[in-house]
Protein backbone atom coordinates (compact mmCIF):
# COMPACT_ATOMS: atom_id res chain seq x y z
CA UNK A 1 0.00 0.00 0.00
CA UNK A 2 2.82 2.37 -0.72
CA UNK A 3 1.30 4.24 -3.57
CA UNK A 4 -1.76 5.49 -1.81
CA UNK A 5 -3.50 8.04 -3.96
CA UNK A 6 -7.09 9.17 -4.30
CA UNK A 7 -8.83 8.58 -7.61
CA UNK A 8 -9.15 11.73 -9.69
CA UNK A 9 -12.81 11.93 -8.79
CA UNK A 10 -12.16 11.74 -5.05
CA UNK A 11 -9.28 14.14 -5.34
CA UNK A 12 -11.53 16.69 -6.99
CA UNK A 13 -14.14 16.18 -4.28
CA UNK A 14 -11.55 16.58 -1.56
CA UNK A 15 -10.14 19.73 -3.13
CA UNK A 16 -13.63 21.17 -3.15
CA UNK A 17 -14.08 20.28 0.52
CA UNK A 18 -10.91 22.07 1.47
CA UNK A 19 -12.28 25.26 -0.04
CA UNK A 20 -15.23 25.39 2.34
CA UNK A 21 -13.09 26.85 5.09
CA UNK A 22 -11.31 30.13 5.55
CA UNK A 23 -7.67 30.46 4.56
CA UNK A 24 -5.40 28.63 6.99
CA UNK A 25 -8.25 26.48 8.37
CA UNK A 26 -7.94 23.63 5.92
CA UNK A 27 -7.60 21.13 8.73
CA UNK A 28 -11.37 21.50 9.08
CA UNK A 29 -11.66 19.23 6.06
CA UNK A 30 -10.01 16.37 7.91
CA UNK A 31 -13.08 14.45 9.04
CA UNK A 32 -14.95 14.69 5.71
CA UNK A 33 -11.74 13.64 3.96
CA UNK A 34 -11.30 10.64 6.22
CA UNK A 35 -14.80 9.53 5.26
CA UNK A 36 -13.87 9.71 1.59
CA UNK A 37 -10.62 7.87 2.30
CA UNK A 38 -12.30 5.13 4.28
CA UNK A 39 -14.77 4.56 1.47
CA UNK A 40 -12.08 4.48 -1.17
CA UNK A 41 -9.44 2.42 0.63
CA UNK A 42 -11.29 -0.77 1.62
CA UNK A 43 -13.42 0.53 4.44
CA UNK A 44 -10.67 1.27 6.91
CA UNK A 45 -7.91 3.77 7.59
CA UNK A 46 -4.51 2.17 7.35
CA UNK A 47 -1.60 4.20 8.76
CA UNK A 48 -0.40 4.83 5.20
CA UNK A 49 -3.79 6.23 4.29
CA UNK A 50 -3.73 8.55 7.29
CA UNK A 51 -0.22 9.67 6.40
CA UNK A 52 -1.43 10.43 2.89
CA UNK A 53 -4.28 12.55 4.24
CA UNK A 54 -1.82 14.38 6.49
CA UNK A 55 0.32 15.18 3.48
CA UNK A 56 -2.68 16.53 1.55
CA UNK A 57 -3.58 18.83 4.41
CA UNK A 58 -0.02 19.63 5.28
CA UNK A 59 -0.40 18.57 8.91
CA UNK A 60 1.51 16.14 11.12
CA UNK A 61 0.45 12.49 10.79
CA UNK A 62 -0.15 12.31 14.54
CA UNK A 63 -2.90 14.90 14.17
CA UNK A 64 -4.69 12.53 11.84
CA UNK A 65 -4.23 9.52 14.12
CA UNK A 66 -5.56 11.49 17.07
CA UNK A 67 -8.71 12.41 15.19
CA UNK A 68 -9.27 9.08 13.46
CA UNK A 69 -9.00 7.19 16.75
CA UNK A 70 -11.47 9.49 18.51
CA UNK A 71 -14.48 8.88 16.30
CA UNK A 72 -16.32 5.59 16.34
CA UNK A 73 -17.16 5.55 12.62
CA UNK A 74 -13.54 5.29 11.56
CA UNK A 75 -12.15 1.78 11.39
CA UNK A 76 -8.49 1.47 12.24
CA UNK A 77 -8.44 -2.20 11.40
CA UNK A 78 -9.66 -4.00 8.29
CA UNK A 79 -13.39 -4.74 8.25
CA UNK A 80 -15.74 -6.85 6.19
CA UNK A 81 -17.48 -5.53 3.12
CA UNK A 82 -20.68 -4.95 5.05
CA UNK A 83 -20.35 -3.50 8.49
CA UNK A 84 -23.62 -4.21 10.28
CA UNK A 85 -24.10 -1.71 13.07
CA UNK A 86 -26.90 -2.56 15.46
CA UNK A 87 -28.11 0.10 17.88
CA UNK A 88 -27.82 -1.14 21.44
CA UNK A 89 -29.08 1.91 23.33
CA UNK A 90 -32.21 2.81 25.28
CA UNK A 91 -35.28 2.41 23.09
CA UNK A 92 -33.77 -0.12 20.74
CA UNK A 93 -32.65 -2.08 23.73
CA UNK A 94 -36.10 -1.85 25.34
CA UNK A 95 -37.56 -3.25 22.14
CA UNK A 96 -35.23 -6.16 21.56
CA UNK A 97 -31.85 -4.96 20.26
CA UNK A 98 -30.16 -7.69 22.23
CA UNK A 99 -32.19 -10.31 20.42
CA UNK A 100 -31.12 -8.83 17.12
CA UNK A 101 -27.47 -8.81 18.13
CA UNK A 102 -27.56 -12.36 19.44
CA UNK A 103 -29.36 -13.52 16.35
CA UNK A 104 -26.73 -11.95 14.11
CA UNK A 105 -23.92 -13.40 16.21
CA UNK A 106 -25.37 -16.84 15.74
CA UNK A 107 -26.22 -16.39 12.13
CA UNK A 108 -22.84 -15.03 11.13
CA UNK A 109 -20.85 -17.07 13.68
CA UNK A 110 -19.02 -14.02 14.93
CA UNK A 111 -19.04 -12.07 18.15
CA UNK A 112 -19.76 -8.37 18.22
CA UNK A 113 -16.64 -6.68 16.85
CA UNK A 114 -15.71 -9.66 14.75
CA UNK A 115 -15.52 -10.23 11.00
CA UNK A 116 -16.76 -13.34 9.23
CA UNK A 117 -14.07 -15.60 7.84
CA UNK A 118 -15.16 -14.87 4.27
CA UNK A 119 -14.56 -11.16 4.91
CA UNK A 120 -18.15 -10.35 4.03
CA UNK A 121 -19.55 -9.06 7.35
CA UNK A 122 -18.34 -7.22 10.39
CA UNK A 123 -20.81 -7.03 13.28
CA UNK A 124 -20.75 -3.98 15.49
CA UNK A 125 -23.03 -2.68 18.19
CA UNK A 126 -23.33 1.07 18.32
CA UNK A 127 -24.97 3.79 20.37
CA UNK A 128 -28.32 5.44 19.59
CA UNK A 129 -28.52 6.34 15.92
CA UNK A 130 -31.49 8.68 16.23
CA UNK A 131 -34.04 6.19 15.06
CA UNK A 132 -35.56 5.22 18.37
CA UNK A 133 -39.14 5.62 17.18
CA UNK A 134 -38.57 2.78 14.73
CA UNK A 135 -36.66 0.55 17.10
CA UNK A 136 -34.94 -1.83 16.92
CA UNK A 137 -32.76 -0.70 14.06
CA UNK A 138 -29.41 -1.08 12.41
CA UNK A 139 -27.27 0.79 9.95
CA UNK A 140 -25.38 -0.66 7.03
CA UNK A 141 -23.45 1.79 4.92
CA UNK A 142 -25.57 4.85 4.22
CA UNK A 143 -28.85 3.14 5.03
CA UNK A 144 -30.93 2.74 8.13
CA UNK A 145 -32.95 -0.46 8.50
CA UNK A 146 -35.76 0.07 10.97
CA UNK A 147 -38.49 -1.80 12.86
CA UNK A 148 -36.37 -4.92 12.66
CA UNK A 149 -37.67 -8.38 13.25
CA UNK A 150 -35.54 -11.49 13.11
CA UNK A 151 -36.94 -12.65 9.74
CA UNK A 152 -36.33 -9.16 8.39
CA UNK A 153 -32.74 -9.35 9.59
CA UNK A 154 -32.36 -12.71 7.83
CA UNK A 155 -33.66 -11.27 4.59
CA UNK A 156 -31.34 -8.31 4.81
CA UNK A 157 -28.29 -10.44 5.45
CA UNK A 158 -29.17 -12.54 2.41
CA UNK A 159 -29.61 -9.44 0.34
CA UNK A 160 -26.24 -8.03 1.37
CA UNK A 161 -24.58 -11.33 0.68
CA UNK A 162 -26.21 -11.48 -2.70
CA UNK A 163 -25.18 -7.90 -3.57
CA UNK A 164 -21.65 -8.72 -2.50
CA UNK A 165 -20.78 -5.03 -2.57
CA UNK A 166 -18.83 -2.98 -0.06
CA UNK A 167 -21.19 -0.65 1.77
CA UNK A 168 -20.00 2.80 2.76
CA UNK A 169 -21.49 5.72 4.61
CA UNK A 170 -20.78 7.86 1.59
CA UNK A 171 -22.84 5.66 -0.77
CA UNK A 172 -26.07 6.84 -2.31
CA UNK A 173 -28.68 5.52 0.12
CA UNK A 174 -30.92 2.76 -1.18
CA UNK A 175 -33.87 3.38 1.10
CA UNK A 176 -34.28 7.05 0.39
CA UNK A 177 -34.42 8.86 -2.92
CA UNK A 178 -32.69 12.18 -2.90
Amino acid at each position, binding site marked *: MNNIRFSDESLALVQKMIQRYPEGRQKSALIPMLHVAQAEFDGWLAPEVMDYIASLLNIQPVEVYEVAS*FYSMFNLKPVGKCVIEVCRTSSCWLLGAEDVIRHLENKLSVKVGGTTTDGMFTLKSVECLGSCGTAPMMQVGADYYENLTLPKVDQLVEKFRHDGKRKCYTDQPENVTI
Partner: protein
Amino acid sequence: MPKVTIDGQMIEVPDGTTILQAARMIGGPIVPPAMCYYSSLKTSGGYCRTCIVKVSKGSEKDPRPMPKPVASCRTTVMDGMEVQNITSPEVVEARKGVVEFLLLNHPLDCPICDQAGECHLQDLAYEHGLSKTRYEFERRTFEKIDIGEKIKLHMTRCILCYRCVKVADQVTNKRVHGVMNRGDVAEISTYIQHAVDNDFSGNMIDVCPVGALTDRTFRFQSRIWNVNPMDAHRDCKTCSGKVTLWMKGNDVARVSARKDKYGEVIDWICNDCRFEKKDAHDWQMDGPTNIERHSVISQNHYSLKEPAHKPLLNTLYTAPADRQLNSNN
Protein backbone atom coordinates in the same frame (compact mmCIF):
# COMPACT_ATOMS: atom_id res chain seq x y z
CA MET B 1 -5.61 45.56 40.07
CA PRO B 2 -8.22 43.13 41.35
CA LYS B 3 -8.24 42.01 44.94
CA VAL B 4 -9.11 38.43 45.76
CA THR B 5 -9.55 36.66 49.06
CA ILE B 6 -8.58 33.02 49.29
CA ASP B 7 -9.38 31.16 52.49
CA GLY B 8 -9.57 34.49 54.26
CA GLN B 9 -6.29 35.87 52.95
CA MET B 10 -6.51 38.87 50.68
CA ILE B 11 -4.10 39.69 47.90
CA GLU B 12 -4.00 42.21 45.08
CA VAL B 13 -2.96 40.70 41.78
CA PRO B 14 -2.43 41.84 38.19
CA ASP B 15 -5.37 41.61 35.76
CA GLY B 16 -5.74 38.21 34.20
CA THR B 17 -4.25 36.33 37.15
CA THR B 18 -5.89 32.99 37.80
CA ILE B 19 -7.06 31.90 41.22
CA LEU B 20 -4.28 29.31 41.33
CA GLN B 21 -1.60 31.88 40.52
CA ALA B 22 -3.02 34.22 43.15
CA ALA B 23 -2.96 31.40 45.70
CA ARG B 24 0.65 30.66 44.83
CA MET B 25 1.46 34.30 45.45
CA ILE B 26 -0.02 33.95 48.91
CA GLY B 27 1.68 30.60 49.40
CA GLY B 28 1.29 28.00 52.13
CA PRO B 29 -1.35 25.35 52.60
CA ILE B 30 -4.08 27.28 50.80
CA VAL B 31 -2.40 26.64 47.42
CA PRO B 32 -4.54 24.13 45.51
CA PRO B 33 -2.68 21.09 44.18
CA ALA B 34 -2.25 21.15 40.40
CA MET B 35 -1.59 18.04 38.35
CA CYS B 36 -2.14 19.30 34.82
CA TYR B 37 -1.64 23.05 34.89
CA TYR B 38 1.85 24.22 34.00
CA SER B 39 2.54 27.92 34.03
CA SER B 40 4.92 27.90 31.11
CA LEU B 41 2.64 25.89 28.85
CA LYS B 42 -0.15 27.77 27.13
CA THR B 43 -3.66 26.28 27.41
CA SER B 44 -2.53 23.83 30.06
CA GLY B 45 -4.80 23.07 32.98
CA GLY B 46 -8.46 22.30 33.39
CA TYR B 47 -8.20 18.55 32.89
CA CYS B 48 -7.32 16.86 36.15
CA ARG B 49 -9.74 18.83 38.38
CA THR B 50 -7.55 18.52 41.51
CA CYS B 51 -7.29 22.30 41.76
CA ILE B 52 -11.03 22.86 42.09
CA VAL B 53 -12.14 25.50 44.56
CA LYS B 54 -15.39 27.12 45.55
CA VAL B 55 -16.07 30.69 44.53
CA SER B 56 -18.34 31.91 47.30
CA LYS B 57 -18.49 35.42 45.90
CA GLY B 58 -18.04 36.08 42.20
CA SER B 59 -16.90 39.68 42.36
CA GLU B 60 -17.71 43.05 43.84
CA LYS B 61 -19.94 43.78 40.84
CA ASP B 62 -21.67 40.44 40.77
CA PRO B 63 -21.39 38.92 44.23
CA ARG B 64 -23.34 35.76 43.38
CA PRO B 65 -21.45 32.58 44.20
CA MET B 66 -20.52 30.36 41.28
CA PRO B 67 -22.93 27.42 41.09
CA LYS B 68 -20.28 24.72 40.75
CA PRO B 69 -16.71 24.33 41.92
CA VAL B 70 -14.29 25.79 39.39
CA ALA B 71 -10.83 24.81 38.22
CA SER B 72 -8.68 27.42 39.93
CA CYS B 73 -6.00 27.08 37.26
CA ARG B 74 -8.38 28.22 34.54
CA THR B 75 -10.50 30.76 36.37
CA THR B 76 -9.46 34.40 36.29
CA VAL B 77 -9.67 36.46 39.40
CA MET B 78 -12.26 39.26 39.53
CA ASP B 79 -12.12 42.20 41.85
CA GLY B 80 -13.74 41.33 45.15
CA MET B 81 -13.81 37.61 44.46
CA GLU B 82 -13.88 35.33 47.48
CA VAL B 83 -12.58 31.81 47.17
CA GLN B 84 -12.66 28.88 49.52
CA ASN B 85 -10.18 26.09 49.23
CA ILE B 86 -9.19 24.22 52.36
CA THR B 87 -11.74 26.12 54.43
CA SER B 88 -14.54 24.50 52.45
CA PRO B 89 -15.38 20.95 53.54
CA GLU B 90 -17.14 20.50 50.21
CA VAL B 91 -13.98 21.29 48.30
CA VAL B 92 -11.90 19.00 50.45
CA GLU B 93 -14.41 16.21 49.91
CA ALA B 94 -14.68 16.85 46.18
CA ARG B 95 -10.90 16.82 45.89
CA LYS B 96 -10.77 13.48 47.64
CA GLY B 97 -13.09 12.28 44.94
CA VAL B 98 -10.84 13.61 42.21
CA VAL B 99 -7.79 11.98 43.78
CA GLU B 100 -9.65 8.71 44.00
CA PHE B 101 -10.55 8.96 40.30
CA LEU B 102 -6.96 9.69 39.37
CA LEU B 103 -5.74 6.69 41.34
CA LEU B 104 -8.54 4.40 40.18
CA ASN B 105 -6.62 2.88 37.33
CA HIS B 106 -3.20 3.79 38.52
CA PRO B 107 -1.05 0.69 38.93
CA LEU B 108 0.25 1.65 42.41
CA ASP B 109 3.58 0.24 41.41
CA CYS B 110 5.44 2.89 43.36
CA PRO B 111 7.98 0.43 44.74
CA ILE B 112 9.28 -0.20 41.23
CA CYS B 113 8.66 3.20 39.70
CA ASP B 114 11.48 5.58 38.80
CA GLN B 115 9.40 8.54 39.77
CA ALA B 116 8.79 7.40 43.35
CA GLY B 117 9.85 10.15 45.66
CA GLU B 118 9.24 12.87 43.13
CA CYS B 119 5.83 11.84 41.92
CA HIS B 120 3.17 14.46 42.25
CA LEU B 121 0.46 11.85 42.33
CA GLN B 122 2.07 10.26 45.35
CA ASP B 123 2.25 13.63 47.06
CA LEU B 124 -1.33 14.32 46.14
CA ALA B 125 -2.58 11.01 47.43
CA TYR B 126 -0.69 11.47 50.64
CA GLU B 127 -2.00 14.93 51.27
CA HIS B 128 -5.48 14.92 49.82
CA GLY B 129 -6.56 11.36 49.26
CA LEU B 130 -8.73 8.79 50.92
CA SER B 131 -7.04 6.24 53.09
CA LYS B 132 -7.93 3.44 50.73
CA THR B 133 -9.38 2.85 47.34
CA ARG B 134 -12.91 1.54 46.89
CA TYR B 135 -12.22 0.25 43.43
CA GLU B 136 -12.50 -3.50 43.16
CA PHE B 137 -12.03 -4.17 39.49
CA GLU B 138 -9.14 -5.03 37.26
CA ARG B 139 -7.08 -1.99 36.53
CA ARG B 140 -6.61 -0.83 33.02
CA THR B 141 -3.18 -1.64 31.63
CA PHE B 142 -1.17 -0.76 28.59
CA GLU B 143 2.05 -2.10 27.17
CA LYS B 144 5.15 -0.08 27.81
CA ILE B 145 6.48 1.51 24.68
CA ASP B 146 9.58 3.41 23.69
CA ILE B 147 8.99 6.87 22.34
CA GLY B 148 12.22 7.16 20.46
CA GLU B 149 15.56 6.04 21.78
CA LYS B 150 15.64 8.04 24.96
CA ILE B 151 12.16 8.06 26.42
CA LYS B 152 10.06 5.25 27.78
CA LEU B 153 6.30 5.52 28.13
CA HIS B 154 4.54 3.52 30.85
CA MET B 155 1.07 4.50 29.74
CA THR B 156 -0.46 2.56 32.62
CA ARG B 157 0.77 5.27 34.96
CA CYS B 158 -0.35 8.22 32.85
CA ILE B 159 -3.03 10.54 34.22
CA LEU B 160 -3.65 12.26 30.87
CA CYS B 161 -2.57 15.68 32.03
CA TYR B 162 -1.75 16.65 28.42
CA ARG B 163 1.44 18.41 29.54
CA CYS B 164 3.74 16.32 27.38
CA VAL B 165 1.53 16.96 24.37
CA LYS B 166 1.73 20.68 25.00
CA VAL B 167 5.51 20.51 25.40
CA ALA B 168 5.73 18.77 22.06
CA ASP B 169 3.48 21.39 20.49
CA GLN B 170 5.01 24.42 22.10
CA VAL B 171 8.63 23.56 22.88
CA THR B 172 9.70 21.17 20.14
CA ASN B 173 9.35 21.89 16.45
CA LYS B 174 7.38 18.82 15.52
CA ARG B 175 4.90 16.79 17.50
CA VAL B 176 4.91 13.09 16.78
CA HIS B 177 3.05 11.79 19.81
CA GLY B 178 -0.42 12.62 21.03
CA VAL B 179 -3.61 11.34 22.60
CA MET B 180 -5.23 8.43 20.80
CA ASN B 181 -8.68 6.95 21.40
CA ARG B 182 -11.10 8.47 23.84
CA GLY B 183 -12.68 8.05 27.23
CA ASP B 184 -10.95 5.74 29.64
CA VAL B 185 -9.03 4.01 26.88
CA ALA B 186 -7.52 7.27 25.70
CA GLU B 187 -3.77 6.97 25.66
CA ILE B 188 -0.64 8.85 24.91
CA SER B 189 0.89 7.16 21.95
CA THR B 190 2.65 7.53 18.67
CA TYR B 191 0.26 5.03 17.04
CA ILE B 192 3.05 3.69 14.95
CA GLN B 193 6.54 3.68 16.33
CA HIS B 194 7.70 7.09 15.33
CA ALA B 195 10.75 8.34 17.14
CA VAL B 196 10.45 11.48 19.17
CA ASP B 197 13.73 13.01 18.20
CA ASN B 198 13.60 16.72 18.67
CA ASP B 199 16.18 18.86 20.39
CA PHE B 200 13.78 19.55 23.23
CA SER B 201 11.66 16.42 23.41
CA GLY B 202 13.29 15.34 26.67
CA ASN B 203 11.41 18.07 28.50
CA MET B 204 8.36 15.87 28.23
CA ILE B 205 9.94 13.74 30.93
CA ASP B 206 10.29 16.64 33.31
CA VAL B 207 6.73 17.90 32.93
CA CYS B 208 5.23 14.47 33.48
CA PRO B 209 3.74 14.58 36.98
CA VAL B 210 3.95 10.81 37.35
CA GLY B 211 6.32 8.13 36.20
CA ALA B 212 4.71 7.67 32.82
CA LEU B 213 7.52 9.22 30.82
CA THR B 214 10.94 8.23 31.98
CA ASP B 215 14.48 8.70 30.91
CA ARG B 216 15.83 5.55 29.27
CA THR B 217 19.35 6.82 29.87
CA PHE B 218 18.86 7.00 33.65
CA ARG B 219 21.85 5.04 34.82
CA PHE B 220 22.09 2.52 37.66
CA GLN B 221 18.30 2.34 37.86
CA SER B 222 18.58 4.21 41.12
CA ARG B 223 15.68 5.16 43.25
CA ILE B 224 15.41 8.85 43.56
CA TRP B 225 16.24 8.82 47.24
CA ASN B 226 19.52 7.10 46.53
CA VAL B 227 20.83 9.98 44.48
CA ASN B 228 21.70 13.51 45.37
CA PRO B 229 20.48 16.42 43.34
CA MET B 230 23.12 19.03 42.45
CA ASP B 231 22.63 22.20 40.46
CA ALA B 232 25.14 22.47 37.62
CA HIS B 233 25.60 24.22 34.34
CA ARG B 234 27.58 24.12 31.12
CA ASP B 235 27.95 26.28 28.09
CA CYS B 236 25.34 25.09 25.67
CA LYS B 237 24.50 26.62 22.32
CA THR B 238 21.01 25.13 22.24
CA CYS B 239 19.69 25.81 25.73
CA SER B 240 20.54 27.63 28.94
CA GLY B 241 22.64 24.70 30.08
CA LYS B 242 21.31 25.11 33.62
CA VAL B 243 20.36 21.72 34.97
CA THR B 244 20.00 19.52 37.99
CA LEU B 245 22.36 16.56 38.07
CA TRP B 246 21.20 13.53 39.99
CA MET B 247 24.48 12.22 41.41
CA LYS B 248 25.24 8.79 42.67
CA GLY B 249 28.55 9.25 44.39
CA ASN B 250 30.64 10.96 41.77
CA ASP B 251 28.64 9.67 38.84
CA VAL B 252 25.88 11.44 36.96
CA ALA B 253 22.89 9.13 37.07
CA ARG B 254 20.50 11.48 35.34
CA VAL B 255 20.19 15.04 34.12
CA SER B 256 16.98 17.01 34.42
CA ALA B 257 15.85 20.60 34.12
CA ARG B 258 15.77 22.71 37.26
CA LYS B 259 12.39 23.00 38.86
CA ASP B 260 10.70 25.53 41.09
CA LYS B 261 8.90 24.73 44.29
CA TYR B 262 5.77 23.69 42.44
CA GLY B 263 7.78 21.21 40.46
CA GLU B 264 7.70 23.29 37.30
CA VAL B 265 10.67 23.50 34.97
CA ILE B 266 12.44 26.86 35.17
CA ASP B 267 14.35 26.62 31.86
CA TRP B 268 13.77 24.00 29.20
CA ILE B 269 16.95 22.05 28.48
CA CYS B 270 18.06 20.41 25.28
CA ASN B 271 18.39 16.71 24.65
CA ASP B 272 22.15 16.97 24.32
CA CYS B 273 22.52 18.25 27.89
CA ARG B 274 19.96 15.80 29.16
CA PHE B 275 20.88 12.57 27.48
CA GLU B 276 24.47 12.88 26.33
CA LYS B 277 26.35 14.60 29.14
CA LYS B 278 26.65 11.87 31.69
CA ASP B 279 30.18 12.66 32.80
CA ALA B 280 30.68 14.92 35.81
CA HIS B 281 33.47 16.63 33.90
CA ASP B 282 30.94 17.93 31.40
CA TRP B 283 29.53 20.17 34.10
CA GLN B 284 30.38 23.04 36.45
CA MET B 285 28.86 22.36 39.84
CA ASP B 286 26.76 25.11 41.44
CA GLY B 287 25.96 23.32 44.69
CA PRO B 288 23.26 21.08 46.12
CA THR B 289 19.75 21.63 44.77
CA ASN B 290 17.53 23.34 47.23
CA ILE B 291 14.49 21.11 47.36
CA GLU B 292 11.85 23.32 48.76
CA ARG B 293 8.96 22.13 46.77
CA HIS B 294 6.02 20.55 48.38
CA SER B 295 7.33 17.11 48.08
CA VAL B 296 7.82 13.90 49.88
CA ILE B 297 11.54 14.40 49.44
CA SER B 298 11.54 17.68 51.31
CA GLN B 299 8.92 16.67 53.82
CA ASN B 300 10.84 13.64 54.86
CA HIS B 301 8.05 11.29 54.11
CA TYR B 302 10.98 9.63 52.47
CA SER B 303 14.42 9.99 53.82
CA LEU B 304 16.79 10.56 50.97
CA LYS B 305 18.60 7.34 51.72
CA GLU B 306 16.09 4.94 53.20
CA PRO B 307 13.09 4.00 51.15
CA ALA B 308 10.21 4.43 53.53
CA HIS B 309 7.58 3.57 51.00
CA LYS B 310 6.18 0.46 52.64
CA PRO B 311 4.32 2.03 55.52
CA LEU B 312 3.23 4.92 53.35
CA LEU B 313 1.75 2.64 50.77
CA ASN B 314 0.06 0.49 53.31
CA THR B 315 -1.82 3.38 54.73
CA LEU B 316 -2.59 4.79 51.35
CA TYR B 317 -3.92 1.87 49.53
CA THR B 318 -5.35 -1.42 50.48
CA ALA B 319 -4.65 -3.57 47.51
CA PRO B 320 -7.42 -5.96 46.61
CA ALA B 321 -6.69 -9.29 48.20
CA ASP B 322 -6.07 -11.04 44.92
CA ARG B 323 -3.48 -8.57 43.78
CA GLN B 324 0.16 -8.15 44.52
CA LEU B 325 0.91 -4.62 45.52
CA ASN B 326 3.75 -4.28 43.12
CA SER B 327 2.47 -6.36 40.28
CA ASN B 328 2.49 -4.31 37.16
CA ASN B 329 -0.80 -5.13 35.52
